[in-house]
């Protein structure tokens, strides 16, 4: 924790994505009249970025997993389709959980037995890359097999990845 400062001297929290840097102008969150002082954390994150990433990732993963899970629904009898629809949220939950757990099992656990065990941040970064790769594979699959909805969702994912890559080169003032 950093030293205490008056609340009006609070600096805006940084963003983690280059895209957020471009679209969200740096600003401090609104303060309530009661708060007087502020103790910033060492590692902070812009709340607006956290919110939009949460919304996008929730909606996108739910829809993309739905496209994958309901693939071939037209040929299903009604009862099977109904069962698939009911199971969709559960499959989504298990898929997202499973992705993280599989990456931990396949990447983190072996790494913890090596000399990299102390490099927590590096392992975390590797986990992020691995999860992005899994989601990219899902996006590619639904683009090729998921009809026009799958194409749209896949394109949205790849557009976001491309935009984030390009935004890394842009100056924050470009789009503001």
């Amino acid at each position, binding site marked *: *924790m950093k030293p205490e400062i008056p609340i009006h001297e609070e600096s805006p929290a940084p963003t983690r994505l280059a895209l957020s840097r471009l679209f969200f102008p740096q600003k401090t969150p609104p303060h309530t009249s*009661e*708060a007087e002082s502020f103790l910033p954390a060492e590692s*902070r994150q812009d709340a607006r970025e*956290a919110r939009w990433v949460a919304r996008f990732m929730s909606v996108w993963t739910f829809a993309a997993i739905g496209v994958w899970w309901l693939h071939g629904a037209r040929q299903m009898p009604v009862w099977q389709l109904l069962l698939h629809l009911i199971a969709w949220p559960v499959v989504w939950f298990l898929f997202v959980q499973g992705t993280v757990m599989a990456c931990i099992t396949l990447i983190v656990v072996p790494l913890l037995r090596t000399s990299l065990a102390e490099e*927590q941040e590096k392992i975390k970064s590797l*986990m992020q890359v691995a999860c992005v790769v899994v989601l990219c594979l899902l996006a590619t699959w639904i683009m090729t097999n998921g009809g026009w909805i799958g194409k749209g969702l896949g394109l949205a994912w790849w557009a976001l990845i491309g935009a984030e890559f390009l935004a890394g080169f842009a100056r924050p003032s470009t789009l503001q």
Partner: protein
Amino acid sequence: MPPWLRRFNIYGDFWRRYLALGVRYCPWFLEPVIIPAFTAFFYLLCAGQRRAVQGNLRALFPQDNLWSIHRRAYAVFLNFAWVLTDSAHQRSGDDVIDWEVAGQERLSQLGQLPGAAMIFTAHMGSYDLAAPLFVEKLQRRLHTVRAPERMAETQEFATQDQPAGNRIDDQFVVHYNTPGSMLAVELTKVLQAGEVLAVQGDRVMFDVSPMPVPFSQDYDWRLPKGPCVLAAVARCPIYPIFVMRVGWRRYRIEARPEFRWEDASPNRRDAQRDVEVWWSRCLRDVIETHWDQWFVFEPAFEKRALRDGGPPAK
């Protein structure tokens, strides 16, 4: 139930360990996807706790329909999940929590008091999260009271890996309210030694005696009697201090105006009643504003008709 299966119980250590593993390695962009999903899972699974929260919310918002009550109850569960997640981050060594302080002057006053003092608080936010900040702000030893975890494995996990001998460890003492622990005597000694004692005065658990306090036309709420009895015996300054989650990885410590003994009755029993009335007003004000983070998963209110055996008061 075999012991290994008990660990998957909602009070078991499996979920705590799973959360601890998750916060260490789960990518930041998936964490806000997984936590609300897990919350929904537990919301469906924990029927007893869900019904208790819904019952408490019904007393707070009697006009709400079933859908609104569900929405609000889910919000309580979600906030609780975020507080647990943030605490797990802090426990794993990530410094990710921003703090706001409101009532700075009262906190300094409390820190500079020569003798004993009590802090009355509610089950909001997390005192574990706030402990380093309290130690820093008060510059004096703080004692807290906590109910032990219901399962030995969970209790062991909750207390393990706490760095021993550091400043926080020396300055932040936890007393567990276990059956037959003579807690009242222990806490009286703490106050006699002139130290600061923080108690959560909003939840009646295990064999804690309740005191019914009128809440509304139809409801009385059940607050624990112990803190008010202790305060009336010690007659030391009482500060209501709350820890609230106000945003993404952001919490606030709010110190509200203290109880004034000058206005209280000299008689111990009447003084206790004065403290009860003052505390119930304080608490009511806070939980009506921050209902979505009042983490009381037991029925806190009882319908007056049920207790009196007659129809509710009109």
